[in-house]
Structures are given as structure tokens and as C-alpha cells.
């Protein structure tokens, strides 16, 4: 992959292999489950097999007397019935927020919710004894369909709230003064023969973040500060929230996120199990540990997506888009997660995407069901938005008989129009959609593939070809704190950094972000090496421990580089400013005559100079330094971004569909992403590849389903079908760069781009391959069965329903059906 941006410095732009990998792939890593302080007790959570039920009795006696068991506790036993887990994003002042308990006391609201906890000397003892806890349930009606749940007269998940609707959030460009009225646009289009109105319903299926390392937590009460080790993306937020939830003074808590094996948003949460470990460690005065199983992870860790999207677009027949109306229903699951309600709202600003849309309205209603909660998952709100707009642009093109790329180009913001303030009021600083698109079209051979498609259609080839387009943008770098404030988000969006210049000239860098697989140790080292002019190898990045990195807002929302990386630059600037004073003093020159480049402070016009390492040593010795300053170069910075950044790109997919079997084969995938300045092209490529895999997975492979009793049917990786490399083609990824002007590095963020862009590219390709056969829509994931059925339906042949909720009789493992734990296996 090549970046068109010229590297301006030594390190930035270099395709370094990731320095953390040597440690991570040779076992010199330390994940939470590898931490077992002396005397650790292990817990296992007894979970409800039912989606919705009254708890009528819990018999703990057999479990309590089982070998190795220290105790079995309910919420009442622990005195935590009143404790509620936090929701940090009340999207409206009157949002309905049920208490989310640490353990359910009287009613369970989703299958997988904890009802009791077993504490034992070993994890095996705890697991064995959990089978002996007898819980009696009185089943209640499960609430599974979000549309039915939102309607009047529905069974209520939380009867005391009086409704299953948590909140409705509206953005209307007419009201906001950022654009016209959509209602006017629609009625104008309806009464105008030269206009068109296109309405479509799209479904965002439920997904499971499926990080590699299951969640785990160890709480060690030894010492003045209680230490919480957790496989989390958000150690700093977890610390503050533990104080909020349990009242433990923040100063008495230390949170450590050791090596964390992936998250994808799935580890942005304050977990009932984490709080249980804290409460139990306090009560028993012993370290307490929890590690979930993969099945527990699939069942009880938060899920993602799950929306119904009703989209209306209006346009002139010449192709000019005149209005966009978006109505969403978003399934929150049984409770509100840490930022769950805000996830669809993040999407609100992205439906208009790269287009000049004069009138826009967004309405989202968050709904409770008796399912696992939903919350952030890679892209959080923006993949949903991008899918809807990119799908409807294709639909509009079809209705108007236009080439889908041409129609997009007609409506997108031209590169000379930047900075551009959108109909949502966001100002896109830079971008060049023409450049990315032109490169992508050439690499892809768009014209050639269109010709091949024509031929295959004409010859009635059983393998049809489809071309899918997605010209996406996203907002990265969460976030300007004032903007978050205006959205009632429960925190700011700044990030903190610190730089310690050691006596020997080595550098310790402290970041408040919390890398968990992104390669930030490498990218951040490259940035600091350039800023300070020190060797890459001399920079150490420290993170993920509130004792080391006391201040931070952690890693999610493609913010680490775009916000955390800039904080580093600001801290480095302070180090250099201090060093310059000492250099001037030692070189007996005026500070104004000191130049700094490549790690050396020199006196302009002379050959006199001192390396930054010498200055660091001089500051340490402190034998000779200027009056009025402290003998230290160490510096901290907190950076609050002034704007989001707006990466964009053009993604093109060629899909082949075997019309006899319905199999979708991805033949070619080209993407040209504009992510601003590229710090490390290798890491960028890795992020894009992984992102593509996850976005393609939504389009073709993954889906979390519940049966009519509310049981998750994808309880193992046999049933939750993650694709592997063997399912994907070799991607052709490129980067172009129009640097962001709202931060000094010109970076934009790349962590989510692939995921956001690829899903609609694939689905547009699938529909494009089948449209001439009469197929107008295939729900995601576009499995072979769904595609085959869509073809049959179009031919007017009736087929059976696609059963999404049936346990597989084969495949050996069956599915974990908690109602029938013996499964079909003999």
C-alpha cells in the first residue's frame, strides 16, 4: 500500500512492523486471565436460561456444600439490590432508564442475565457448584420483536416504566436552521412530475463483537488502593464509574488494563461481573477473579447494531437529491448499556454522508426487548447510517435509470467546496471524493467489469456478476468536548499525554488512550521519535494503568490517534520548549537564536549545538540550568479537539453469485481511503483489512438470532459464523491523503473505516447481480439460502420460510440451548 503523502519526517510514514507484536505473539504478553494473585478466589455466575421470568426461589444449599465452595450469593445476600450499572448517555432529558442490576433479584429480563454468583477456591469448583444452584422461574412473555415492542399494548419489559420506548431523539434541519424541511421536500416531490420519492426499509441485523480474548476481571483488595485488572477498553472510565456505582473513593482505586486481546467496542462497558468482583473482594478480603467462557461472551456481552431503518429520499428527476428522511427503531435489549442509547445517535450525523442534501430529518426511537443489551460495536452508529444512505443512493439510481457512481458524483461535495458545513451542522474540513473515486475506479476496472456483467446477463450465465459501490465518509476522533456536552454525553472527549525525559536520554511516553490490538505503541513511538528527534527504539509507550497514566478517556471511536496522538504532539512541544531554554543557557546564546531539528538544538549560524539527550541529562543533573525554571523537561498535555475528523473513501466490490445455489463469492475488492496523514502504512493496511473483514461479515456471514422463547441460537462459534481469511479475497487497498486541517498532524483515523464502508458495497453488489432477475432486496447477512430464496421469490416460486432460529441438529456441538442443556448429543 502506498501513501501519496510525502513523509515530511523520518519516522512518520514508515511501514514499521509493530513493536508490540514480538511480545504478543511469543507469549511474553499478560492478559487478565494470566493474573492470579496469591489466595485468589474464582467466581462463576449462575445465569438465567429464560429471557423473561419471575424468580420464585433460589436454593443454594447443595452448591454451598459442594467441594471448594466459599459461598453462593444473590443480590440480596450481597446487599447490592439497589446498585444500578451506569448509562452515561441519556439522549433525552426524559429518557426511560431502568435500573440495570448487578444480579437480577425478582425478574430476569434476558437469557444470560446473572441471578447468583458462586465463589470457590478454583474456577473448576465454581463451575461445578453453579450446576447445583436451583433457581425456580415463573416464565413471563418474552418481548422479542422491536416493532411490536414499540407498539401500544405490548408486553412490557419493565412495567414500571409504562412503555418499551426508552426515548425518541430527533434532528430536524429545519428546526436546527441548518437546512430545509423534509416534510416540505417530500410533499413538493410528491406533487411534482419532475421529482421522485423513493422509500425503502433496511434491517441492521444483530451482531456480536466477537473479540478474541474473552472478558475477564481480577480485583485485588490488598494494599491501600484496590486494584482492578480488567480486559477492558476503558480503564479510566471504569475507575470513575466504579466510584459512581459502588461509592469506593476514586483515590482508593487503581485500574489496570493489561494486554487486551481486541474489543471492537465490545469492551466499552462497566460490567456487572466487574462490580461483583469488587463487592466480593471487599467482603471476603481476598483477590477475586472472573473469566468468562466463549459461550457466556456470546450470550451476555453486549451485542451491536439491530435497527430497523425506514428511509425516504427525494430527488429531482435530473438526479439532484432534495431531501432525506430517516426513521429508526433501535433495539437496546433489556437495559441501557454504558453508551448504548447514543450509538444510533452517532449515526444521525452521517446519513447525509458525502452528499449535499438540502433538507434532512432523523428520528430514532430506542426500544426495550428481552434480549442481550446492545452497545458500541466497531463503527457505532456510522455503519448503520452509511449502509442506509449508500443503499438508497443505489435504489435512487435504479429508479432514475442512472449509473450509481455518476449519481453519487452529481450530489457529492466537490473538493473545491471544502470546508463544507453539512445539513447536520458539521463542518467537514477536507476531503477529495473525486480523487479517491477516480483511483478506485481505475484499479477496479469499473468499465471492464460492467461490460462483463452485461455479457453474463445477456448469455444467462448461471454465475452472475454484481458491482457494489460505497462512497463513504465517517466522523472520527471522538470528540470535541463541547459537542459531546450538547448531546448530553456523560464525559468530555479530550485526551491526555505525558512525556518523561529520562536521565539517559530515553523517553517514556504516557498516553490516556488504551490500546488493545491497534498497534498504537508503534505508531505513537513514531510520532514522538519525530517530534523529539530521538531514535524510535528509545521511546517506550506506557498505558492502561491508572497509576502510570492517571488521566485519560481511553480507546474507542477511532479517537486514539486523532485525539490521543495530538495530545502527544502537544506534550512534545512543551518538552522541546523547555529543552530550548536549557540549550540556550548551556550554549550561551539567546533562546531566539536556537534552532531545533533532528534532535539537536543549535545556535543559528554556528556549528555549536547540543543533542536533546544531553539536555535531558543536564536537566537531570541540574548543576547548571537557567534561573526561573524547574530542572525538568517532563511535560503533560490535555488535548481537546476542535472538530471531528472526516476520513472518506471509495470502496468497490465485484461479487459473483451462483444463481443455482445462491452462493455469493467476493471476487474483487478495491478500496481507496483518504485518512489524512498516514503515520504507519502497514498498520493502516492492517486496520483496513480487519475492518473490511468485519464489514463483509455483516453483509454475508454474521447474525445473532433468538428463537421464539428468547433464547440466543448462536451460542457458539459453530452457529455464529465468523468468516476467516479463507472466506475473503485478497483486498486491494490504497490510501490517498488530503490531510485534516483541524489537527497538527493532519490525521483522520482509520480504525473503523473498513467496517463502515464495506457492508453496503457488498450488499449493493449482491442486489446489482440479481436486480435483472427481479430481486429488489436481500436481508443481511446475504447467505446462500437467502439469496436463493430471493431468486425463487422473484420467479414466483414459493419456498419455505428461512428459519433463522432453529438449532442445528448437526455440526456436533449443536447449539447451547439452556432449556435443553443435554442437547441432542448422546
Amino acid at each position, binding site marked *: 500500500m502506498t501513501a501519496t503523502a510525502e513523509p515530511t519526517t523520518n519516522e512518520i510514514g514508515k511501514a514499521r512492523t509493530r513493536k508490540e507484536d514480538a511480545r504478543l505473539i511469543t507469549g511474553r504478553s499478560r492478559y487478565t486471565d494470566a493474573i492470579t494473585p496469591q489466595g485468589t478466589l474464582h467466581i462463576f455466575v449462575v445465569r438465567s436460561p429464560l429471557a423473561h421470568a419471575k424468580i420464585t426461589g433460589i436454593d443454594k444449599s447443595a452448591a454451598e456444600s459442594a467441594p471448594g465452595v466459599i459461598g453462593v450469593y444473590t443480590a440480596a445476600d450481597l446487599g447490592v439490590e439497589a446498585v444500578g450499572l451506569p448509562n452515561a448517555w441519556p439522549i433525552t432529558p426524559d429518557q426511560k432508564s431502568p435500573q440495570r442490576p448487578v444480579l437480577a433479584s425478582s425478574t430476569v429480563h434476558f437469557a444470560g442475565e446473572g441471578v447468583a454468583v458462586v465463589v470457590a477456591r478454583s*474456577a*473448576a469448583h465454581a*463451575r*461445578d457448584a453453579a*450446576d447445583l444452584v436451583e433457581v425456580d422461574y415463573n416464565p413471563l412473555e418474552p418481548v422479542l420483536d422491536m416493532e411490536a415492542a414499540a407498539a401500544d399494548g405490548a408486553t412490557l419489559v419493565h412495567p414500571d416504566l409504562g412503555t418499551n420506548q426508552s426515548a425518541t431523539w430527533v434532528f430536524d434541519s429545519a428546526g436546527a436552521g441548518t437546512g430545509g424541511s423534509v416534510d416540505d421536500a417530500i410533499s413538493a416531490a410528491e406533487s411534482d412530475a419532475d421529482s421522485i420519492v423513493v422509500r425503502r426499509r433496511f434491517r441492521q441485523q444483530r451482531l456480536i463483537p466477537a473479540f478474541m480474548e474473552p472478558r475477564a476481571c481480577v480485583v485485588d483488595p490488598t494494599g491501600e488502593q484496590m486494584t482492578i485488572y480488567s480486559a477492558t477498553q476503558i480503564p479510566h472510565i471504569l475507575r470513575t464509574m466504579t466510584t459512581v456505582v459502588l461509592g469506593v473513593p476514586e483515590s482508593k482505586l487503581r485500574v489496570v488494563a493489561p494486554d487486551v486481546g481486541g474489543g471492537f467496542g465490545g469492551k466499552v462497558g462497566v460490567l456487572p461481573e466487574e462490580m461483583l468482583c469488587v463487592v466480593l473482594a471487599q467482603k471476603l478480603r481476598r483477590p477475586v477473579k472472573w473469566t468468562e*467462557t*466463549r*459461550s457466556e461472551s456470546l450470550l451476555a456481552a453486549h451485542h451491536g447494531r439491530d435497527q430497523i431503518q425506514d428511509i425516504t429520499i427525494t430527488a429531482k428527476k435530473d438526479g439532484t437529491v432534495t431531501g432525506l428522511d430517516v426513521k429508526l427503531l433501535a433495539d437496546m435489549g433489556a437495559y441501557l448499556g454504558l453508551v448504548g442509547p447514543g450509538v444510533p445517535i452517532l449515526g444521525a450525523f452521517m446519513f447525509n454522508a458525502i452528499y449535499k442534501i438540502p433538507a434532512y430529518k432523523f428520528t430514532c426511537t430506542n426500544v426495550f426487548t428481552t434480549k442481550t443489551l446492545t452497545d458500541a460495536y466497531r463503527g457505532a452508529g456510522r455503519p448503520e447510517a452509511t449502509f442506509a444512505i449508500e443503499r438508497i443512493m443505489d435504489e435512487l439510481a435504479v429508479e432514475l435509470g442512472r449509473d450509481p457512481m455518476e449519481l453519487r458524483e452529481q450530489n457529492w461535495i466537490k473538493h473545491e467546496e471544502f470546508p463544507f458545513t453539512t445539513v447536520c451542522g458539521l463542518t467537514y474540513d477536507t476531503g477529495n471524493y473525486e480523487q479517491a473515486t477516480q483511483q478506485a475506479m481505475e484499479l477496479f476496472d469499473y468499465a471492464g467489469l460492467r461490460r462483463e456483467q452485461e455479457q453474463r446477463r445477456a448469455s444467462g450465465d448461471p454465475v452472475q456478476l454484481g458491482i457494489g459501490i460505497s462512497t463513504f465518509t465517517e466522523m472520527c476522533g471522538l470528540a470535541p468536548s463541547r459537542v459531546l456536552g450538547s448531546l448530553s454525553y456523560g464525559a468530555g472527549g479530550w485526551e491526555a499525554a505525558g512525556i518523561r525525559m529520562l536521565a539517559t536520554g530515553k523517553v517514556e511516553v504516557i498516553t490516556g488512550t488504551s490500546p488493545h490490538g491497534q498497534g498504537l505503541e508503534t505508531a505513537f513511538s513514531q510520532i514522538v521519535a519525530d517530534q523529539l528527534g530521538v531514535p524510535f527504539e528509545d521511546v517506550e509507550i506506557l498505558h492502561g494503568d491508572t497509576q502510570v497514566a492517571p488521566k485519560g478517556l481511553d480507546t474507542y471511536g477511532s479517537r486514539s490517534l486523532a485525539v490521543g496522538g495530538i495530545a502527544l504532539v502537544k506534550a512534545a512541544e512543551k518538552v522541546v520548549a523547555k529543552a530550548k531554554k536549557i540549550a540556550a543557557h548551556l550554549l550561551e546564546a539567546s533562546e531566539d537564536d536556537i534552532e531545533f531539528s533532528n534532535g539537536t538544538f543549535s545556535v543559528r549560524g554556528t556549528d555549536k549545538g547540543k543533542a536533546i539527550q544531553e539536555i535531558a541529562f543536564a536537566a537531570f543533573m541540574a548543576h547548571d540550568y537557567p534561573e526561573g525554571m524547574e530542572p525538568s523537561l517532563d511535560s503533560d498535555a490535555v488535548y481537546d479537539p476542535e472538530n471531528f475528523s472526516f476520513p472518506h473513501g471509495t470502496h468497490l466490490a465485484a461479487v459473483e453469485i451462483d444463481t*443455482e*445455489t445462491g*452462493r455469493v463469492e467476493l471476487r474483487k475488492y478495491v478500496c481507496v481511503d483518504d485518512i489524512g496523514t498516514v503515520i504507519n502504512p502497514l498498520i493502516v493496511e492492517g486496520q483496513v483489512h480487519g475492518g473490511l473483514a468485519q464489514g463483509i461479515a455483516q453483509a454475508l*456471514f454474521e447474525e445473532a*438470532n433468538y428463537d421464539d422463547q428468547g433464547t440466543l*441460537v448462536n451460542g*457458539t462459534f*459453530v*452457529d455464529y*459464523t*465468523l*468468516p*476467516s481469511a*479463507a*472466506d475473503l479475497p485478497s483486498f486491494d487497498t490504497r490510501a490517498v491523503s488530503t490531510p485534516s486541517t483541524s489537527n497538527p498532524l493532519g490525521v483522520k483515523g482509520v480504525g473503523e473505516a473498513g467496517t463502515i464502508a464495506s457492508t453496503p458495497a457488498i450488499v449493493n453488489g449482491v442486489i446489482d447481480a440479481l436486480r435483472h432477475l427481479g430481486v429488489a432486496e436481500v436481508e443481511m447477512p446475504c*447467505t*446462500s*439460502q437467502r439469496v*436463493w*430464496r430471493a431468486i425463487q421469490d422473484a420467479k414466483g416460486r414459493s*419456498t*419455505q*420460510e*428461512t*428459519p*433463522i*432460529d*432453529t*438449532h*442445528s*441438529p*448437526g*455440526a*456436533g*456441538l*449443536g447449539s*447451547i440451548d439452556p432449556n435443553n*442443556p*443435554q*442437547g*441432542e*448429543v*448422546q
Partner: protein
Amino acid sequence: MIPSKFDYVKPASVADAVAALEQGGEDAKILAGGHSLIPVLRLRLAAPTLLVDLGGIAELRGIREDGDRVTIGAMTTYYDVLRDDLVKEHVTLLAQATETVADGQVRHRGTLGGSLAHADPAGDLGAVALALDAELTIAGPGGTRTVPASEFFEGLFTTVIGETEILTQISFPRYTGWGSHYEKFNRTAQAWSMCAVAAAIRVDGGTIAEARVGLTNMGATPIRARGVEQALVGQPATADAVRAAAEHATEGTAAPSDADAASDYREHLAKVLTGRAVMAAAG
């Protein structure tokens, strides 16, 4: 993922293994490659109290010529089956199907015997054993017996192997010079079959002289597609003739319905895949 507590023995002979099973009674289980059993234990879908590991019995491993047959020890791993020259030449279909099982890691641990004994309807080797008229040798307290593949599978995850018996070897007639193909259809590249077709064909002068066709995951057990076989014999190996014969693929099947495929879709797949498998086998 912690299984229930169990005892573990690793006998060195078939006789000792049978004795251990007898002692362990109803709650004893054989452990072969573990790639079906261990997940089942970890999910606590089964809780045997004794595992009898066959990994220490050398006589159960390996592939040898046995007159006009090729005989494979039950504990031979997929990987060893795949690489074996005898298998490649005379029982090509077995090698082809084995290559589609999961991924390299699984193929290095999983065993042919374990796969057949497990009798997962989605497993790939049952249809091959059935189509190729394999014979399975089972050792028990009363000695050994040999059953044809057609009598081996009884139902979902059940075979004629008794509680104190061990599958020791699988022997195949030679299909030297036959064309063969395993056509597998799955949800992701390394997953079990939603439906698959095992076909071996002997073509003589452009005409199909003999045909063997087995179906994976079209019922509780692997199924022999006799209707297809009969329709093929005597036909030219052309697309039209094969397609017509493939219409018989669903005879005698009881296709399951699950999230990957409802029964009507499976039935459709069986026909399409049968046509493809036979065409590929016919070369």
C-alpha cells in the same frame, strides 16, 4: 469452558481399552482426536466419568494394503489419510473429502475412526464410507465383528458400536482408475457441510459403467443415493444426462431444517451438488 470431572486412562492395547470400557460402564467414553468430544465436554453437553484415550494404541494407527482392499486404522489422523499414497491412488474420494474437513489444525488431530464413530450427520466421511462400501471392524468383549457401512449408522450421533466396543479399522475396496469428487457446500469456508455429495464414477468409453453416490447431511445418517446411481449407469457422461439423474438425489432423504438451510433448500442443493459432483468425477 471447564468440563465436569472425569477420570482418564490411556491403555496400550485394544484388549485393555475394552476392559477399561467394561469397568467404566455406562459413563465411560472413548477419546480419539478429541475434536468432537472435547467441545461437547467443555460445553457440558455430556459428562462421562471416565475417558479411555486410544492415543496409546499403536495398532490402531496406520494404513496398509490388505489384499484387494486398503485398510485404515481407526486412530489414523485425517492428515495421515490425506498424505497416503495408497489412499490417493485407490480411494481417491476419501482423500478428497478429508481435505475439506475444517482446517489444518483439526486435520492434524481428528481421526477417521472418531469421525465415523461420532456419526454427526454433517460430518464429511460417513457419506464416503457409505458410497464406497467400506467395512468397519469393531472390537468388543466378545471379540471382533465386521459390519458394512450400510449397516453401521443408526441415527443422529448413533452407530452400531456398543458401549464397550471400539471401532478398530475401516477397510475400503480399491477404486483404482475411477473418477471421483466430493462436492461440499458450507456456510463458511472451514465449516461443516450444509449438504455435500460424494461421487465415484467409472466411465467406460464415454458411458457411465458404475456409479457410487453418498449424501452428507440429508438425513439423520449419511445416505446412499441409489436412485441417482441407477439412473446414471449406462448413460453418457454428459451434462444433460447427469442433470436428469441428479433429480433422483432426494429419494429416501429426510433433509433437516436449520438456520443454514431449510429442508426445501437442502433438497435443491442436493440435486445441484449431485450434478456437479458427478460431472467433476466423470472428468
